[in-house]
């Protein structure tokens, strides 16, 4: 049987003038071919801000439903890695940890490391995983990798509870400097965003990115003072070493937590590199997002 409307309820198109809304004088949406240099439309981002919230909410909800211990995994991952490094590097090799008990020393940085590496990995495949949405509905695509990072930020908050427990257990004296710690969290969040959206955009065009990333990340971890103190690095190499934006963040957050002197130069270099990367990433993303629906 056909679903057509029968003869007796024939459509009567009879709209009142009032029903037809007043049109705005200028177009609400201008559709144009892509240009070489695209700008970011902040008004559009604001208009679609709720999508970000719901995408984060979706991922947290689904993870909670699909795993037995749910949120606990977020704590288990950095704890296990810390245990491994504490035994091999802390006990056996006795890596210097600036006089701080090695487990707290390592966990404070592994917490941040787990956040940034998971952020980059999950945002790198976020666009590909959400291809069904990308090819069928419009909202600023940056929301998708941003949501992947938002989920990891929630993880970081949960895992921070363990850091607080360890600080109490090892009787690490906290000073006013500890108030700086959240600033470094924001800093690493911005860095994760910059690298994450770049990885996401490139992964749409070249799936090799997803394969290469774990190796690059591993190398990056050892190139950053995560499981050792940067005092291990020879002085003549320090200025090169500081170009790694993670160095200023990790050392800075340790200085905040353990009442050590801040190395403001490396913090400033890290902030500059992070901002530069973010600007580059956001513009490249705006450029590449026009092609996502045709390529994903």
């Amino acid at each position: 049987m056909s679903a057509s409307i029968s003869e007796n309820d024939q459509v009567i198109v009879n709209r009142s003038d009032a029903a037809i809304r007043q049109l705005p004088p200028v177009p609400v949406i201008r559709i144009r071919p892509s240009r070489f240099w695209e700008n970011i439309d902040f008004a559009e981002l604001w208009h679609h801000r709720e999508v970000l919230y719901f995408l984060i909410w979706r991922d947290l909800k689904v993870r909670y439903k699909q795993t037995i211990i749910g949120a606990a995994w977020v704590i288990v991952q950095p704890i296990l890695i810390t245990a491994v490094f504490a035994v091999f590097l802390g006990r056996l090799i006795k890596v210097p940890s600036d006089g701080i008990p090695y487990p707290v020393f390592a966990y404070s940085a592994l917490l941040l490391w787990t956040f940034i590496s998971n952020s980059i990995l999950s945002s790198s495949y976020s666009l590909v995983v959400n291809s069904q949405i990308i090819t069928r509905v419009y909202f600023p695509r940056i929301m998708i990798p941003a949501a992947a990072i938002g989920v990891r930020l929630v993880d970081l908050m949960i895992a921070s509870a363990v850091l607080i427990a360890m600080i109490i257990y090892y009787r690490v004296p906290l000073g006013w400097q500890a108030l700086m710690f959240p600033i470094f969290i924001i800093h690493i969040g911005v860095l994760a965003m910059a690298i994450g959206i770049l990885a996401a955009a490139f992964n749409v065009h070249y799936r090799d990115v997803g394969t290469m990333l774990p190796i690059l990340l591993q190398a990056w971890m050892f190139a950053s003072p995560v499981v050792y103190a940067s005092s291990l690095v020879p002085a003549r190499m320090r200025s090169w070493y500081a170009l790694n934006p993670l160095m200023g963040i990790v050392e800075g957050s340790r200085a905040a937590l353990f009442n050590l002197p801040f190395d403001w130069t490396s913090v400033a270099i890290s902030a500059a590199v992070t901002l530069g990367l973010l600007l580059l990433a956001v513009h490249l993303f705006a450029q590449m997002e026009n092609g996502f629906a045709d390529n994903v």
Partner: protein
Amino acid sequence: MSRHSFAIMKPIIKAEGLGKKYYLGARETVAPTVREAIKQTIAHHAGWRRTLPIVWALDRISFEVYPGEVIGLIGHNGAGKSTLLRILARITRPTVGQADLFGRAGSLLGVGTGFHPDLTGRENIFLNGAILGMNRHEIVRKFDEIVAFAEVEDFLDTPAKRYSSGMYLRLGFAIAAHLEPEILLLDEVLTIADAPFQKKCLQKIREASRAGTTVLFVSHKLTSIEQLCDRVLHIQSGRILEEGKPAAVVGGYLNQIATEANGKDA
């Protein structure tokens, strides 16, 4: 029965020379590896691309749509109807030309976009609603209406993966139907619904149009097109072949199909 004279009004959609070009066999799909990408890039710069066959999925068309109009798009598969909707929905960019929209567009180019199988019906209403452009308050306000329209009251707390394809479709359409955008873009979404639900959806589209929503509607169901639309565009090979009153354009399209069939028989 008074009909608006749309022509004296200001258009809500104004498209000028809108075109989308694809190269056949080149970079239309993703390069699977860097090696392939390098090969393609070299080929591109060496000028191979110029010799590749070009397809204008949409061949520089211009048209205007007036507020409250219901426009039907008909034509064979691959004629460019979906490409047009995808450009207007901002999913893909045109290669040339431009279009100005004087209102927000909501699109239903697939049903249940972004539904997650592990989330319940209730959760998916919020997720899908947000993805389609509703804010939380709007979703809360229309929640009961959406549920009643989709007839899924008893399955609200069941994961979507246990839904039948009919329920999935009904819920997906119900959410989109309550979007209330100024411009509604619909791509052949009702074909898989059963007859009573299709009727309900057409009724809903008609109500939206009466309330002032502009609708662009792709369908192969010519009876619905004739009953629902104020104007029909027959699209072929990316161009507007014929445009006008539903009965005339649909009639022309049917004649063309008949001629093509005869041609094949001969």
